[in-house]
């Protein structure tokens, strides 16, 4: 196997894994129902080595699949066409903290939470906080354009990427962007690479924007006996020109599961919960939280509370934090989706999900980021039951359709990967797919970089939804 020998020559033999156990261990990510072993797993130490690996892949027509920690929820890091899985465990250093330009330069393998802790110890703030941040990598976050709880106020990963170094499919290395607030020199190639899911090249170095760390934060909570009241509250909070740091939502089914799991004493008659957090200067934070609670009450919230201490805040947050844990314990397979709608459509979307679940006789509960309309309808099922899985697939197709109908999208922060590729055209249309294909063809003519992702062999026929 000539390619393997060459690969070992580039990175050194100990940095290429090929044992049965190793190939199996890199055959999956966090997506249910996708598994496929690579031909080899490689850990390069530099941009130069990655460029060499890329050229090798081009010559031997080997797919190249970059992988952070494998927490992807759309099969984006599963080597479904075999090939080489590229790891960043040897490229995990924070290279520079630039206090004068408020930015940090890192290698892709840095763990998100480690970066957050590091910059916070310097009085700075990197806001994107995907739920997997304790193990997700910055490289993965950039390639997926990851979101998190603070998306509404602080934006998502792309809003913090200032500069990138990337190895292109032709083996060339480009640098794009800079430590610049303004830069209009040519096409914004940096933005093209962010969220490209590794299909246009491999990101090898990242410069991220930082902002000052907010001085204080405060947490409040409100329970509602109707979904629509919670939805109205979200809209009115924004209309009152308050942009909360987080505004989180749980539906009845999620709260039931949490209560079963943790016995927190959540109100039994509640149909929806909103968890609100504001950060910033003390006076403004106090004012905003009080006003949000007042709006919740005006909309008929039956129970509200404001945390007086960090411990109290932790208690208020406990339920929402445990949502996924609680739900995932109910059935063998958990499928976490991220259909997203304009925030004004929150209640309508949650209702639509309820109806779709009922119609298809599947169990779906919803929690998520109410402030930015990014919902996580979570299906509890059993992947061994093929008949039920067919209904689950149908339900999700209908959920995507409903989200698009309401002006939303099939994925807010998880990415398209391979799992949602048959639905991409629903969102961006045939013209959008055509343009993306032209771009992909121009940059990666041999389809080396993460093949099978984003672009589906065939698009799913659209489902027709009947409301009411």
């Amino acid at each position, binding site marked *: 196997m000539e390619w393997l020998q060459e690969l070992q020559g580039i990175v050194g033999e100990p940095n290429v894994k090929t044992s049965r156990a190793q190939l*199996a261990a890199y*055959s999956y990510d966090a997506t249910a129902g996708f598994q496929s072993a690579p031909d080899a797993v490689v850990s390069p130490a530099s941009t130069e080595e990655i460029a060499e690996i890329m050229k090798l892949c081009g010559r031997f027509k080997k797919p190249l699949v970059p992988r952070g*920690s494998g927490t992807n929820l759309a099969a984006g890091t599963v080597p479904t066409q075999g090939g080489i899985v590229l790891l960043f465990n040897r490229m995990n250093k924070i290279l520079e903290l630039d206090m004068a330009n408020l930015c940090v330069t890192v290698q892709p393998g840095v763990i998100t939470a480690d970066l957050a802790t590091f910059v916070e110890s310097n009085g700075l703030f990197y806001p994107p906080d995907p739920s997997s941040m304790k193990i997700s990598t910055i490289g993965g976050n950039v390639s997926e354009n990851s979101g998190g709880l603070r998306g509404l106020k602080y934006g998502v990963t792309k809003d913090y990427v200032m500069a990138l170094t990337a190895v292109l499919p032709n083996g060339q290395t480009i640098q794009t962007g800079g430590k610049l607030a303004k830069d209009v020199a040519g096409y914004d190639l940096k933005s093209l690479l962010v969220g490209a899911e590794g299909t246009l090249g491999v990101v090898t170095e990242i410069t991220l924007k930082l902002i000052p760390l907010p001085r204080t934060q405060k947490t409040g909570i409100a329970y509602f006996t109707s979904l629509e009241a919670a939805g109205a509250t979200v809209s009115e909070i924004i209309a009152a020109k308050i942009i909360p740091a987080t505004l989180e939502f749980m539906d009845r089914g999620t709260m039931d599961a949490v209560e079963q799991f943790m016995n927190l004493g959540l109100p039994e008659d509640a149909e929806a919960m909103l968890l609100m957090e504001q950060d910033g200067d003390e006076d403004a934070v106090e004012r905003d939280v009080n006003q949000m609670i007042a709006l919740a009450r005006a909309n008929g919230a039956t129970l509200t509370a404001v945390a007086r201490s960090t411990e109290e805040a932790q208690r208020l947050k406990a339920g929402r934090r445990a949502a996924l844990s609680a739900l995932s*314990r109910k059935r*063998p397979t958990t499928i976490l989706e991220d259909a997203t709608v304009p925030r004004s459509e929150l209640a309508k979307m949650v209702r639509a999900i309820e109806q779709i679940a009922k119609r298809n006789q599947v169990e779906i509960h919803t929690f998520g980021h109410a402030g930015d309309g990014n919902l996580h309808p979570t299906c509890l099922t059993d992947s061994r039951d093929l008949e039920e899985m067919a209904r689950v697939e149908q339900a999700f197709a209908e959920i995507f359709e409903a989200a698009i109908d309401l002006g939303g999208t099939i994925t807010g922060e998880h990415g398209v990967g391979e799992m949602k590729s048959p639905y991409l055209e629903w969102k961006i249309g045939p013209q959008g797919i055509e343009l993306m294909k032209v771009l992909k063809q121009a940059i990666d003519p041999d389809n080396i970089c993460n093949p099978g992702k984003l672009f589906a062999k065939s698009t799913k026929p659209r489902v027709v939804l009947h409301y009411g």
Partner: protein
Amino acid sequence: MANLLEERMQQSFINHVDENLLMDCMRCGFCLPACPTYLITDQDEVHSPRGRIALMKAVRDGEVKWDGSVEEAFDVCLGCRACEPACPAGVQYGTLLEETRYAVQQAKPIGLSEKLTRKVAFDGLFANQQIMQGTVKLIQFYQTTGIQKVARKIGFMELFPKTLRDMEKVLPKITSKKQSSSPSNPKIKVAFFTGCLMDTMFQQTNQRTIELLESLGAEVVVPKGQACCGALHGHSGEIPKAKRNALQNIEAFQHTDYSYIVQNAGGCGAFLSEYGKLLATDEAKRFSEKLIDISSLLVQLGLTDKMARHQVPVEGIVTYQDSCHLRNVNKVWLEPRALLQASPGWEFKEMPNASGCCGSAGIYNILQPEIASQLLEQKMKGVRTVRPARIVTTNPGCLLQMKVGIEREGLTDEMEAVHIVDFVYESIFQTTKGV
């Protein structure tokens, strides 16, 4: 031959590894940052809980054929179970690991026990003795005791060479406990699980455990007929033998009327607390429900309050190394720290990553000396940042490992590793002359 083994292994996994427990894993990866072997191997997914569960399932489903690399993945696991508190889906990793090791044991042409015994005898003792020559007796004693532990627990003494059998003989024998000064009007009655290792090498610690409890108004009974808890059997794939020991212990403890079964070894405590799950009988569940660790019981009996009343000048720094099983399985980490914070004459300082495994992990340090050494080295780096005079542990394995760590780093003049009972006992009776 190879194909036969592959088929036998798959069948054994089908028979012994519970598919429903495997299905609980949703592969989110939240366990990865909690896993010491994942971190120490530069984030090798093979050596992560998620990777091992995927391999268990792949072997069971026939997607991955058994070979040395798969076997290694299961062997390298410490069994520290730090992944369990980190898991959002409540995967019962400890059970899956035990089932896997049992399945492997059943299907392998050479039994795991034999391999283990050989490993202990040839790699553990002889190799290490050469390496360790010139170091203190403690380490030799450690190894011999490690051998004894393995031998007695697994019952494979006959496989050891004669020299080892001789060594086994010179080690202290279990003596029956004398009932010391039981309080006349006890406020609580507890039964003491003495543990096989604690009762030989750490006999003094056990005696002090009883004295401390009695000084706090507890009546302590030591039921006769106790056996080793069976943890080492269970962790090495010898489930039937673990069950045998469990039945014997349940029998030994069933005739006495007491509020708690107290133990002072984290590893044993965790295994005892899972008898209910292991045997799935009402008697076993009752036994497990009555278990308490010594730190929690001392706090409950008011020792921290009593100690806090004795204000004496601070003489040194004490730090705490969690017992993985006490922390991850029994969820006890506050109580030992509360005791240390209250101990007269000592300032408690938390060391970095105190909850991370020290590499002892039963007999892991003998079976996987390389990774165990790396973990210990990392642990000692954390210790150095605190520079304590005492490292306190709540489990004999951790205690010995920390002693080895101190020895290797040449820190014997500066610090000492002690069991929490000895530490508390000494800080009370030798600093303030009693509470």
